[in-house]
């Protein structure tokens, strides 16, 4: 049974939600519901795709910095520093409008096969978010790779295990295991970065709430609904990572 003060707070919270539902203006919901679902779907798939691709890029970046020769480690370090040192909004606009401003100078681009993709906005959003995630995770993976006990790697090498197998069987799994608690938080941070894609005309759920505001002049209700949706998604991400952590053994020898 919940402690009495928690019950009181829960009652207050439910009362607040009920007041919001009854006295604020929600008449726009039925009309914009399909658009909201479309925006929600776009937010989620952009999040999943950029996290997966970003991790795929982060692993070599971290490995290069932890164990690579200087000509691989230095560019990786520069990349991570630049990504972490500049705002994501700037990176997004640089890719979309910066590259866009080059198109008129190279007319042959419009005839190429890639043009239908280069024309749209979502590839730039995916690229910017992927590079951003890779930059931050590359730094985390570097620490994770360095944190795996050297003794294990040396023992495997002494047993004659080929380098790639050591990476695949010992180094990488343990590094990911070390990084897993942080990765959940980083995924939530990536979720919080997704609304920025609305500034380059990608219709995610934040863009839909902006559209509702422009059409109906209602300011707060769409934003409150949006905050609720993001909290729900963040909660799901945290639960998913907790489940994942329970599946993966935590204690390292």
């Amino acid at each position, binding site marked *: 049974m919940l402690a009495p003060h928690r019950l009181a707070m829960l009652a207050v919270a439910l009362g607040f939600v009920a007041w919001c539902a009854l006295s604020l203006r929600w008449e726009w919901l039925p009309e914009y519901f399909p658009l909201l679902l479309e925006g929600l779907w776009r937010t989620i798939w952009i999040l999943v795709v950029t996290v997966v691709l970003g991790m795929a890029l982060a692993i070599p970046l971290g490995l290069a910095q932890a164990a690579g020769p200087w000509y691989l480690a230095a560019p990786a370090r520069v990349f991570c520093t630049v990504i972490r040192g*500049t*705002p994501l909004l700037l990176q997004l606009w*640089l890719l979309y409008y910066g590259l866009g401003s080059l198109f008129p100078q190279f007319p042959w681009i419009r005839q190429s096969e890639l043009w239908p993709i280069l024309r749209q906005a979502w590839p730039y959003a995916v690229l910017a978010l992927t590079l951003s995630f890779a930059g931050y995770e590359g730094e985390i993976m570097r620490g994770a790779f360095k944190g795996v006990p050297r003794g294990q790697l040396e023992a495997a090498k002494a047993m004659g295990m080929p380098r790639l197998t050591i990476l695949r069987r010992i180094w990488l799994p343990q590094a990911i295991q070390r990084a897993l608690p942080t990765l959940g938080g980083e995924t939530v941070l990536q979720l919080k970065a997704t609304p920025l894609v609305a500034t380059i005309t990608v219709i995610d759920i934040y863009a839909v709430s902006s559209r509702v505001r422009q059409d109906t002049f209602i300011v707060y209700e769409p934003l409150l609904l949006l905050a609720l949706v993001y909290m729900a998604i963040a909660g799901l991400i945290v639960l998913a990572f907790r489940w994942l952590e329970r599946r993966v053994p935590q204690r390292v020898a």
Partner: protein
Amino acid sequence: MDGLIAALGLGPTLDLLALEPPGWGGNLLRGLANSLQIALGAFGLGLLIGLFGAYGKLYGGPVLRDLLAVYTTVVRAVPELILILILYFAVTDAVNQLLVSLGYDRIQISGVAAGIAVLGVVQGAYATEVLRGAIMAVPAGQIEAARAMGMPPVMLARRITLPASFGFALPGLANLWLIATKDTALLAVVGFAELTLETRQAAGTTKAYFTFFLAAGALYLAVTLVSGWLFGRAERWARRGEATASGSGR
């Protein structure tokens, strides 16, 4: 030097970035000054909120702890952009409606103040966690000894807890400062004249998008690198005299 610039074809680019008009460099630097001003204000406000939040979470009653937990969870789960929009319009709206209903005139809340308030609230949630972790890292024996000697709580905080936790808090605070400087870019979406907005306006007027976005990126990077170096020195000073940690993994 001039010959090298001409050979690389950078002449027009550097003209655009010149500090004096018709170069836009002066505008960009003004935007940077605005950004740093807001970042400093937000960081300071965040620290203040974080201090009260950390103490509340550690030593407060159950209701206070739950309220603070709600605050930190909401801020850490909702995107900053949404929070900035809600707070930016709601705060000024609420304050003005209150004043009008009480019979006073509306007041003008400057863009700087609104930006600092909004980003400070966001920073406060993260600072609460950082400072809470740092305070918990202070050896409990020291605090117990001070309490046993009858030291009043404020003096205890001032003389023992806060100085000792400073070294533990620094890496987290360095991170928070960098987040503050980068979050100021989000204020461009509400039209506040900081570096990212000035860059977009300069780029939109001159159509030299690449030039200006790269220049703004270089400015942000410079701020990051200088801040990193400063915080590194602060951390070395805070940890002076501590035994060096043994190498990881052995």
